[in-house]
């Protein structure tokens, strides 16, 4: 994404109106010709980060492919809230098969397009963190290693929200879920588990891997656009807060996402052919408490008595991200 120097007329925010940007840099969503691929009227919760991420990602992919797009969708919130029979919010050809096979279904679609001589039709697979990092991981890795021409987008809300907030391999340490309850000596999810799928994706040496966050939607759009410039397997991991599962106010989705980035909890970066090519820098580094406090899933870290040990472990993980990805200019903490 090109950087444009602009003058801020508003203070106290990092947002900028489209009218201040060169038309080529303006957001897809601000364009009257946006496709509304995930149309309004679906049944996502108020403040759903996944619905927001999917809407921006798919509309950007539609622009990038001149509307020649097919999507495969894993079982999960996105599937359920968008297609209760006989309604569908999808304005694009869309298929839901199973929870764990979305990457493989997309491989099949891509193969069909190749054999039918329609290379202009591009394929997206999408699912939540459960469908991606857990049950769909075998098919995902298979699609990666074969370098099938599929963009896989994971909307990561760090647990199985559709079934009632159970732990996944993307659930962070200390987080309360229905299967990692906030009881006992070490309440919430245990530390030292889980997997980093963006890094695992990079280890497959696929052409493009990126992370994104719903507080930087223009960045998400730009990454989807960039992903569509490659052929082969591509992966975008989008951090999507879940008001229901995380226990934060629905109007705070964007704020929580921004805090995840500004604390270093969630590193936003892009990698091409296995090498990091860009990171989204932290503008004002904040302590992780700022991120943890507004979320009920971390409430046991603050009351009835504070658990500074657990908070320090989370801070250490955030600091490690900052060092590992160079998220703060100058590299000092």
């Amino acid at each position, binding site marked *: 994404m090109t950087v444009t120097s602009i003058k801020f007329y508003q203070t106290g925010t990092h947002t900028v109106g489209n009218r201040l940007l060169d038309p080529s840099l303006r957001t897809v969503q601000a364009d009257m010709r946006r496709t509304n691929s995930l149309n309004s009227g679906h049944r996502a919760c108020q403040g759903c980060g996944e619905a927001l991420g999917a809407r921006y990602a798919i509309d950007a992919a539609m622009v990038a492919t001149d509307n020649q797009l097919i999507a495969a969708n894993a079982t999960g919130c996105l599937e359920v809230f968008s297609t209760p029979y006989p309604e569908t919010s999808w*304005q694009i050809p*869309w298929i839901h098969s199973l929870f764990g*096979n979305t990457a493989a279904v997309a491989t099949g679609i891509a*193969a*069909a397009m190749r054999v039918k001589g329609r290379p202009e039709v591009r394929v997206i697979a999408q699912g939540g963190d459960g469908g991606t990092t857990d049950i769909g991981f075998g098919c995902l890795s298979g699609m990666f290693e074969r370098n099938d021409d599929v963009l896989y987008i994971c909307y990561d809300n760090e647990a199985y929200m559709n079934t009632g907030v159970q732990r996944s391999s993307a659930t962070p340490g200390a987080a309360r879920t229905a299967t990692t309850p906030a009881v006992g000596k070490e309440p919430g999810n245990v530390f030292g588990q889980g997997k980093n799928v963006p890094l695992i994706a990079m280890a497959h040496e696929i052409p493009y891997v990126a992370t994104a966050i719903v507080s930087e939607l223009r960045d998400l759009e730009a990454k989807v656009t960039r992903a569509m410039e490659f052929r082969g397997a591509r992966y975008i991991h989008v951090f999507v807060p879940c008001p229901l599962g995380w226990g934060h106010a629905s109007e705070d989705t964007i704020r929580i996402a921004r805090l995840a980035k500004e604390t270093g909890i969630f590193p936003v970066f892009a990698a091409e052919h296995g090498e990091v090519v860009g990171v989204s820098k932290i503008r004002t580094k904040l302590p992780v408490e700022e991120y943890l406090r507004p979320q009920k899933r971390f409430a046991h870290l603050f009351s009835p008595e504070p658990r500074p040990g657990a908070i320090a472990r989370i801070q250490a993980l955030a600091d490690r991200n900052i060092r590992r990805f160079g998220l703060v200019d100058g590299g000092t903490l």
Partner: protein
Amino acid sequence: MLKQCEGSHAVAETVALCRPEVICAYPISPQTHIVEGLSEMVRDGTLLNCEFINVESEFAAMSVAIGASAAGARAYTATASQGLLYMAEAVWNASGLGLPIVMTLANRAIGAPINIWNDHTDSMSMRDSGWIQLFAETNQDAADLHIQAFRLSEEVSLPIMVCMDGFILTHAYEGVDIPSQEQVDAYLPPYEPRQVLDPSEPVSIGAMVGPEAFAEVRYLAHAKQMQALGLIPELAAEFRQSFGRDSGGLVRCYRLEDADTAVVALGSVLGTIKDTVDDLHEEGHKIGVLGITSYRPFPINAIRDALQKVRRVIVVEKCFAVGIGGIVSRDVRMALRTLPQPIYDVVAGLGGRAITKAALHTLFLDGMAEKLDPVTFLDLDWKAVNRELERERTKRRSGPIAENVLRDIGLVAARIR
């Protein structure tokens, strides 16, 4: 063209003639030679316009086939045994979505204990999945059934398993008439999907369906199989006209005209059964055979018509439902429910146990003399079974069953007659 070749090779060549567009392959014995043959044909350019994808599991194989089929491509895969179970969720999904995928099932037992040899337990585990299941008696049959399967599958928009006995057919060399490309093209038109993922006409496939419509959608899958009951004989008749030989159909009768006793079976064991029946005819017995080609849909009327005049029915099946007994026999009983004939169920050939003419000869004589139990386990080593039962009665930590039985039995090679 008549060729002396392996069954798997005959199937691979015939499948290639059906112009599959996406083939997904994951290795499992005994189907491997089929996909190996196809991969070679894709690589050397014999099979054009085909994507051959080496996937990471059977679950992925069926899932890739689902995606390909939903996007309008003719999709094919092959599996067996544990592979079929591993893809089970996708097997049900393919039929639930009404996607016309053709899959060869090289029938093999299911573990534990792990066993690579032939029986029908794998296909029976998916008998209620909504797939059409066609059973091949010979390698010629296996090859021909694939041509009919693609045609039928696409006409009714349902997936089809062509079941051929692992090793007994897949690895047997015999003469097979491989048709010409022109013949197959004349019989099998290009795939025209009922539903397709296409940006020019977007549809959603695979929506969540609640109680308000689920039963109707499931019933329609049943209705399509009932349509297939009518189509299967028509397609077999057309096949005979085009290719000049009998193949397919719902059931096949052998010497049933004046039979008192009918033997019912599926797959390659029909050959041994027919030979035994021929011998019994020479001894003056009135016994005939009913081979079931279409196990799903189950041809209730055709079976009742074929068996209504016999006095007794012996079902020889290479599978059984633990906790009750036969599987095929229960379905046959359903077909004959208004008729008085006794149905004797014989479970035989599990895990590749040879079903010999000698054993069948004795069995059929016993059956004709009404001396069979309702369920018979053919050639079961009762001594080995009872020793293990005794061990478990007398000792809490009696150890792993399979290993105990193997130790008791000792060398097995000499036991095959």
